[in-house]
């Protein structure tokens, strides 16, 4: 045994020295300092930027149709480091680059011809699609490249913009990064019922596959500012945007689904016509499908507990339960109005189910669902829906009594 060991030892030593060579690093390493991190993406109808036009005038360009303009927002290490160091007037901490063309992947690669730092999409936070594009192309076509490749994470959010999507990726505030701003607003769902639960790529993909209609958050922009305003309706059959719910209608959907985490209900006190604001603490909704033969109907029971957060009714005495009861009634009426409003819109105007009625039917009556699944949106538009709203005020803050 000893002998073989002494023979093998030099071999092992030379092998371990040789292995040091492989320790020099990763096979395909790219320094992070030399990459630009893509964080936001906006898809618009094709419209060449002035830079692109000038480049094309000098003979740039390749064979393509300018159907789509993609705007990439990225943080370059150069910019990122300069913002941390600089004490004086701050620079923009992001760079937007627009490319027009017909293939998304080709457009990204075109950027490598314009910048020394290739774009990586590992940190992509949000994709904004403009209304005009969402109305003319299927969503799965627009997002196919993102679904497919390994860089864009399935957790990346999808938004719709009624205006030009690239504008939502702009800001005038120094130091603010527009893509992070958009992703951050989604997190504010506990403050308002007008924000949809986050729709990431993976959720969008499964919605598309399931063939049911759904909503995507809409975002507006003006002068470098943005606002989440309502939602775009994506049709389950065409996978294109077919309509739009405004902020109040979106609020109604949130009440029906019961997925809201917080927000307020403003209503007017019946007797005096003055303002009462109800703040939601918890929200619960049960959609109960009722099937009798071929007739399907739904009962929606909405329950919520909250507090009286603003009271303009001078005569109202919050120490008295009668007043609180009346305040509850007043808020309930407002919620009912919101629900009625959006149901009408869904059933009469767009004829789509985006509030999850079909999903409840699937769960409670799978056999019935199998029959009506194919033409669900049409069936839904003729389905009677009853709704009950019950709000409970259990708190009115630190100021009580009547103001008179």
């Amino acid at each position, binding site marked *: 045994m000893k002998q073989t060991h002494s023979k093998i030892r030099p071999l092992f030593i030379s092998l371990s020295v040789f292995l040091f060579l492989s320790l020099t690093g990763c096979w395909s390493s790219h320094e992070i300092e030399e990459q630009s991190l893509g964080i936001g993406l906006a898809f618009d109808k094709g419209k060449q930027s002035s830079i692109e036009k000038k480049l094309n005038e000098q003979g740039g360009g390749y064979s393509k149709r300018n159907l789509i303009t993609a705007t990439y927002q990225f943080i370059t290490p150069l910019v990122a480091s300069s913002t941390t160091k600089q004490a004086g007037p701050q620079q923009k901490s992001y760079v937007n680059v627009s490319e027009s063309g017909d293939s998304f992947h080709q457009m990204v690669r075109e950027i490598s011809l314009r910048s020394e730092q290739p774009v990586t999409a590992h940190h992509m936070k949000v994709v904004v699609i403009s209304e005009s594009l969402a109305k003319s192309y299927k969503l799965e076509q627009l997002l196919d490249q993102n679904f497919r490749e390994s860089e864009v994470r399935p957790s990346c959010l999808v938004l719709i913009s009624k205006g030009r999507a690239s504008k939502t990726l702009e800001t005038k505030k120094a130091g603010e990064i527009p893509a992070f701003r958009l992703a951050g607003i989604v997190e504010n769902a506990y403050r308002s019922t007008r924000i949809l639960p986050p729709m990431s790529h993976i959720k969008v993909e*499964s919605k598309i*596959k399931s063939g049911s209609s759904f909503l995507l958050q809409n975002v507006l922009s003006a002068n470098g500012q943005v606002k989440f305003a309502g939602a775009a309706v994506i049709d389950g059959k065409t996978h294109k945007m077919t309509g739009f719910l405004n902020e109040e209608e979106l609020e109604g959907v949130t009440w029906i689904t019961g997925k809201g985490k917080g927000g307020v209900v403003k209503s007017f006190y019946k007797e005096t016509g003055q303002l009462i604001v109800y703040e939601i603490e918890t929200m619960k909704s049960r959609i109960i499908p009722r099937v009798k033969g071929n007739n399907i109907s739904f009962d929606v029971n909405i329950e919520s507990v909250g507090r009286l957060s603003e009271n303009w009714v001078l005569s109202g005495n919050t120490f008295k339960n009668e007043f609180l009861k009346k305040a509850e009634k007043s808020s309930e009426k407002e919620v009912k109005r919101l629900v009625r409003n959006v149901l009408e819109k869904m059933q009469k105007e767009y004829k789509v189910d985006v509030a999850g009625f079909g999903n409840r039917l699937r769960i409670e009556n799978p056999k019935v669902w199998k029959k009506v699944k194919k033409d669900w949106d049409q069936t839904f538009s003729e389905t009677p829906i009853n709704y009950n709203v019950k709000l409970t005020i259990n708190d009115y803050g630190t100021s009580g009594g009547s103001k008179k």
Partner: protein
Amino acid sequence: MILSPKDKITTPQAAVIVINFILGTGLLTLPRSSTEKVHTPDVWISVILGGAIAIIAGVIMVKLSQQFPEKTFYQYINDIVGKWVGRLLSLVVICYFLTTSGFQLRAMAEVIKYLLLEGTPTWAIIMIFMWVSLYLIIGGINPIARLFEIILPLTVILFLVVTFMSIKIFEIDNLRPVLGEGIIPVLKGVKTTALAFSGPEIMLLLLPFMNQPKKAVKALIVGVSIPLIFYVITVVMVIGALSVDGVVMRTWPTLDLIRSFEISGLIFERFESLLLVVWIMQIFATFTITYYAAALGLAQLSKKSIHPFMFGLLPILYIIAMIPRNINDLFKQGDFVGNMALFLFGLLPLLLLIISRIKGGKYETNT
């Protein structure tokens, strides 16, 4: 080949080997492959049924092996069906282990190439993997068992932590209704899920290495139950987050589950690397044990030392791993391996057991 007395493993070690063998590629692909067949959210029931079938098949194999507690499958099969048929069957089993081995190798390389090391050539990934594995199996069954004992707790902890973090995007509605379309769709998925449990067959070879062969059934049941729990958790969490319609769209659904959320505030925001660590370790375990099983088979067939076979199998494994031209071919290879397992370890052991029982206690006098 003569077994040295040191080459003995305890009952828990045997269970650990079975667990590590079972957990492999299936961890990442099972939610899709089974949902494709079932198409309702009841996949988890199929998984439980599949596990039960695997336990039954495993018990049959153990009972068969317990008739010859001193011998491995390659040795005692000759006693049951004669020399020539026995050799042929042994060769088929060896082929099965080799193909499984190559399949795991390639699946691992594909995922690593897609997610971690984009520019690294496949051969570089595969070779390092094979060399490390060779180094391990040269030591025999005992080092393998001990390494697996280290891998297992890491797997359990990391896997559970990472999977339960996805609770943020979990929606119970995606798992309902239970049995909405009856039991038929569930049964359609049982074959797929049962094949995800291929691994108990190692008991055919493991028994003579065990210091208490009588407890083999216990080791087997524990060995299958733990992967069963893992698989059920995986399927429930993946379908809960991605929904039935979403799962069938993804190539590697479990990985996409972990990629679908980010948690800020912890040290890491993204956890797919942790899942990949677990998964690569498990693939390594599966690869190593099948590699060893194939080498052991060749050694016992030819009655020569095992070491030359270990080295000799390296290029063969590499070629098997490189045969599939693309990922669809790879999945087809996986199906092929599965069908082979169905025959070899579902039907054959039962037949052999019956034959050996009919022949009765003849062997005891022979040996």
